[in-house]
């Protein structure tokens, strides 16, 4: 089998400056910094070797060696910030590597975002051509596939409407449809399934499987483990920019991804040590799973113990739309449920107060199955802004459930299914049996 992509000793570093408030460099800063440095040199000539400022070299990916045979569908998984997107950006030539070398055989099309380059003022028809050109499709190809694209997106009636008037669902469908009709040798896809509703995701997955089955090489980044398992023939696990695992046994890699957080980082508790997620409304300081008395629990937990999710944070400004909550993900990466402190009737909401404020919520007993879970913190200003968005950018902890599934002599082990609730059962005499009885009474 021939090699489609060969990556040798690849690395990409960024120089990050701490205390940097702006997202871009202003010439003013460069000039003032330069003057400061010059002044320092003049006045303290002996201190010349002192490291300058708080600059730090940060390797987004490093020492990546990977060979991908033609026709393989590789799932790239890892936590946020593990280097997945950087790797894809280097592969798609958006950013240049700092060291190393990549050899690619064939035409690459990358889809790092759905609807890149869509212009809201242009009509659906115009955007199909524009977006196609941006993705590198020749005009003749777009024309040939135009009908397929429109049909897949189900927007026939709105072809000549500016896309700014589209519903978000139509917009996504159209954008994905254009991309799905690319015919590259190598397709690079980043987390496009994170957006859109279930129907859209299903459609996307189906199309991706179809693309994969035609023998194209696919690189697929996703947090949706079920999707990775379904589509990919092999998986790569990235952590802190390096390859942790690479195997054709996709479930094994996924298991490693889901578990190593629990074992290696031992993270039943998250502490805000570097001033992250700062906001006036709520800055999370501590997020952990604990017992009723507030102590952090260690190791695997029985399903029938009382466990609490604790969220401790700093409030500088009371905001009535503040929502504190958490999301539970199972081992395969699927979201089980969300819970927020504003879920009940408004009069029953736990009040927030200025300063350090602790929210707690009991995890339902006997609901989770045996296994590993990831619990993401969610903090939002209702309908305005995510301060911590579960599954996207948020603190998280791991929880392992083992034992205590039920008191029944018939049931002691892990059951099939995502959940294993113990639900009440009742019985009564059936209506047919009862009817002669009631007759006799009357």
């Amino acid at each position, binding site marked *: 089998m021939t090699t489609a992509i060969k990556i040798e000793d690849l*690395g990409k570093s*960024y120089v990050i400056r701490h205390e940097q408030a702006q997202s*871009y*460099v*202003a*010439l*003013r800063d*460069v000039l003032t910094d330069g003057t400061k440095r010059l002044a320092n040199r003049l006045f303290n000539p002996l201190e010349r070797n002192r490291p300058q400022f708080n600059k730090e070299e940060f390797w987004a990916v490093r020492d990546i060696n990977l060979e991908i045979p033609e026709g393989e569908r590789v799932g790239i998984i890892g936590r946020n910030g593990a280097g997945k997107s950087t790797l894809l*950006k*280097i*592969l*798609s*030539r*958006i*950013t*240049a*590597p*700092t*060291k*190393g*070398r*990549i*050899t*690619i*055989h*064939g*035409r*690459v099309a*990358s889809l*790092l*975002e759905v609807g*890149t*380059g869509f*212009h809201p*003022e*242009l009509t659906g028809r*115009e955007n199909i*051509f*524009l977006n196609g*050109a*941006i*993705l*590198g499709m*020749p*005009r003749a190809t777009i024309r040939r596939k135009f009908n397929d694209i429109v049909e897949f997106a189900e927007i026939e009636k709105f072809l000549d409407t500016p896309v700014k008037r589209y519903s978000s669902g139509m917009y996504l469908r159209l954008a994905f449809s254009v991309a799905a009709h690319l015919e590259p*040798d190598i397709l690079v896809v980043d987390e496009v399934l994170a957006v859109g509703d279930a129907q859209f995701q299903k459609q996307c997955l189906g199309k991706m499987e179809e693309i994969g089955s035609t023998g194209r090489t696919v690189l697929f980044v996703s947090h949706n483990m079920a999707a990775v398992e379904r589509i990919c023939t092999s998986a790569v696990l990235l952590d802190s920019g390096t390859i942790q695992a690479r195997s054709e046994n996709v479930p094994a890699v996924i298991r490693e991804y889901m578990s190593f957080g629990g074992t290696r980082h031992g993270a039943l508790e998250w502490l805000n040590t570097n001033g992250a997620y700062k906001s006036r409304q709520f800055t999370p300081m501590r997020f952990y799973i604990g017992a009723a008395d507030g102590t952090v629990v260690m190791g695997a937990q029985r399903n029938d113990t009382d466990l609490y999710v604790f969220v401790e944070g700093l409030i500088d400004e009371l905001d009535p739309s503040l929502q504190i909550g958490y999301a539970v993900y199972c081992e395969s990466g699927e979201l089980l449920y969300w819970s927020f402190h504003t879920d009940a009737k408004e009069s029953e909401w736990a009040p927030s107060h200025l300063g350090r404020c602790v929210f707690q919520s009991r995890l339902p007993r006997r609901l989770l199955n045996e296994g590993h879970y990831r619990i993401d913190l969610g903090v939002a200003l209702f309908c305005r802004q995510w301060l911590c968005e579960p599954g996207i950018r948020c603190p998280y902890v791991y929880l392992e459930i083992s034992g205590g599934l039920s008191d029944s002599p018939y049931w002691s082990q892990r059951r099939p299914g995502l959940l294993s609730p113990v639900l009440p059962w009742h019985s009564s005499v059936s209506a047919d049996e009862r009817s002669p009885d009631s007759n006799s009474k009357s």
Partner: protein
Amino acid sequence: MRELVQDKLVLIIEAGRTERHYWLDIWRYRELFYFLAWRDILVRYKQTVIGILWAVIRPLLAIVVFTVIFGKLANLPSGDIPYPILVCAAMLPWQFFASAFAEAGNSLIGNSNLISKVYFPRLIIPASAIVVTFVDFLISALILVGLMLWYGFLPDWRLLALPLFIVVAIGAALGIGLWLAALNVKYRDFRFVIPFIAQFGLYVSPVGFSSSVVPEQWRLLYSINPLVGVIDGFRWALLRGQESIYWPGLILSTALVVLLLISGIVFFRRAERSFADFI
């Protein structure tokens, strides 16, 4: 046939090496160039009441103001040429240059979503921005046609040389535009430099007056402004040579434009590799 060609396609990405097939890639992405220009032309006057008329009104008002101030109030000499035509022949290339380099300079920032998500030779973005302003320029040229018919002042054979000066104007706009666009990605200060150059440049370029009013000993120095050569050339080509060409100045201006353009491309290409990291 196509498949065969694609089979052979091998791409090597290596640290510290510039793209080997850069100019070939630009050729491959020529459709994107066309589409980006087309998009900006379509969108430019959407949701405006008078639409494309804006391309005419802006230079027209500027010409009226200049004619009144320089021609009537300051009484600057214009020879046998009607003053409005003298101003118009300079205002058109100036406005083209000013909006072209400004659009090009801001084009990368305006397309940051593309730059951080898709690969293509970035040179396409400022280049297509200039195409859009060129269309405006062609439309606004109607003013000059109108004025010439009104005054019965028609150009002669020298008009044939006009495309040459248009090329120089495009080169000047692209050269400065590339510098500003690349710098703008890293240092947003240049957002403020752009309108400043546009405003300042109008007064140091011979738009409201003929460059023959500049004393002889200063003319070569004056031609360091690349627009001096362009505007003098426009006037020479359009006004039957009544505005004579000052050759040393024209050569200096043109040489500077070539230098600006080449250095702009080199600088842009060097900066291009890290655009996605900074934008």
